[in-house]
């Protein structure tokens, strides 16, 4: 974000890691390998209670999407909501960004993780979101 280096930035969610090499992280069950983006008390797959911190791959494939034309106030429409599957087999929900025409979104298209500033609060803190752009 070249012109915004002076502003403090926070990630929109805790599982988005900012810095020089932005990426997603997941809580990975040490017993079965199932991944979670939120805090879990036990693994929903196997019941294990041990979790380690894992990096999620950046490259992904578009598995399902919807072009949303009617959204909550303040959300620019249309936008492309997507379920992608990363190269390491993790499903992620986010928007497909960087398409000139949302109708060009295509099932199976290859996409790549990216970040962008999605808002600024009253203290001038910027919120950084992530999305997936055509690879």
């Amino acid at each position, binding site marked *: 974000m070249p012109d915004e280096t002076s502003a403090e930035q926070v990630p929109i*969610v805790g599982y988005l890691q900012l810095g020089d090499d932005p990426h997603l992280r997941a809580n990975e069950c040490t017993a079965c390998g*199932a991944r979670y983006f*939120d805090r879990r008390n036990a693994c929903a797959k196997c019941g294990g209670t041990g979790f380690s911190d894992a990096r999620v791959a950046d490259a992904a494939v578009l598995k*399902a999407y919807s072009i*949303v034309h009617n959204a*909550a106030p303040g959300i620019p429409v249309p936008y492309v909501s997507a*379920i992608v599957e990363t190269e390491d087999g993790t499903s992620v929900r986010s928007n497909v960004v960087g398409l000139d025409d949302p109708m060009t979104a295509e099932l199976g298209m290859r996409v790549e993780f990216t970040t962008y500033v999605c808002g600024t609060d009253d203290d001038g803190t910027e919120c950084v979101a992530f999305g997936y752009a055509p690879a």
Partner: protein
Amino acid sequence: MSGDAVWVLGANMTRFARYPELDALDLASQACLDAFADGGVGIHDMDILAAGTLFQPNGFGQRLQKQIGQTGIPVYNVTNACATGATAIRVAYLSIKAGEAEMGLAVGVEQMGKMGLLAGKSRSERKVYEASGRYDAVTSIDGILGTETMPGVFAQAGTGYAYENDGVGFEQFAKVAYKNHLHSTLNPLAQYQKEFSLEQIMGSPVQSYPNTTLMCCPTGDGAAAVVLISGERLRSMPEEAQRRAVKISASVLTSDPWVESGQVQPDVNTLTRNAAAQAYETAGVGPEDLDLVELHDCFATAELVHYDNLGLCERGGAGDFIDSGAPFRDGRIPVNVSGGLISKGHPIGATGVANVYEITTHLRGEAGDRQIEGAKVGLAHVIGLGSACGIHILEKAA
């Protein structure tokens, strides 16, 4: 548990519509009193009341009892997303199966008016980013990290199916809505009773592609109620009541088992497949035996995937199934001859009771213009996100 079957003795639903002059107690009372009349019984015959609603305040069942008869029986207030009504039926069913009750009343009701649920929640005016919740989110993520709107979530269920299977696209989804709007023209209880062309459906405003406005269920008001009875008690009822009674061959409730993608996109498939397998096994019937199906078409994209989940078509064949005309009322397995949620309406708590009412009415041969002739076996399915799936298989009295 008793091996004796549980039967539907009485059933009724209000027309689904908007009733600004009534409240939810009025609607539920009307459905209950009419279900009593239909079954030739009254509140003093009931051993249990299960009342389903998503949006009414706590204690709705007890307040309803003040309107229809305060007899001191156990009252269960039931909330289970869009499976609320089916769950209320199952509560009464289980009480009879357990031998605690001979007769039970299950009612579902909702008064939603024009809730405007298509766009999603308005966000607060909070303008200071602070991490909160289990994701440490600093703001609402809806619309930024994908969609949380219902038309969008179910659109993704549909496009996810299209990714895995051939022959599914915008037109196949639109045909589902075409069929259900067409079916609703024969149902005087439907909120809307208007036919639309495929072109009108595909050309109506896009909510969340591929779901256009005419492919989304409306919000609305309504209630439905059923009186359930044990087989033993039924045998002491008048002959006419026995003839009209409908057997519950299976009553199943499932939740969503873990799947890899479940944490980011609700899986509406696996729990429906599991429920269907259990229901067919319990009832001793297969999809090929079904004369009609009422399934949870909250959006056109949802109905299509449930053809597959319920085994109505070959695995992966939902696109061909709608293209072949099979789920139309004159097709191989009529689906949503009531008009479905898309046109009959979806007052959430009432939905899972209303589809049992619909099947019951056909099995009795009392469905009027929309009657599926000679119907003997039917299946009612609902699914609520979170998730909960309820399936009931009903059979005509021998």
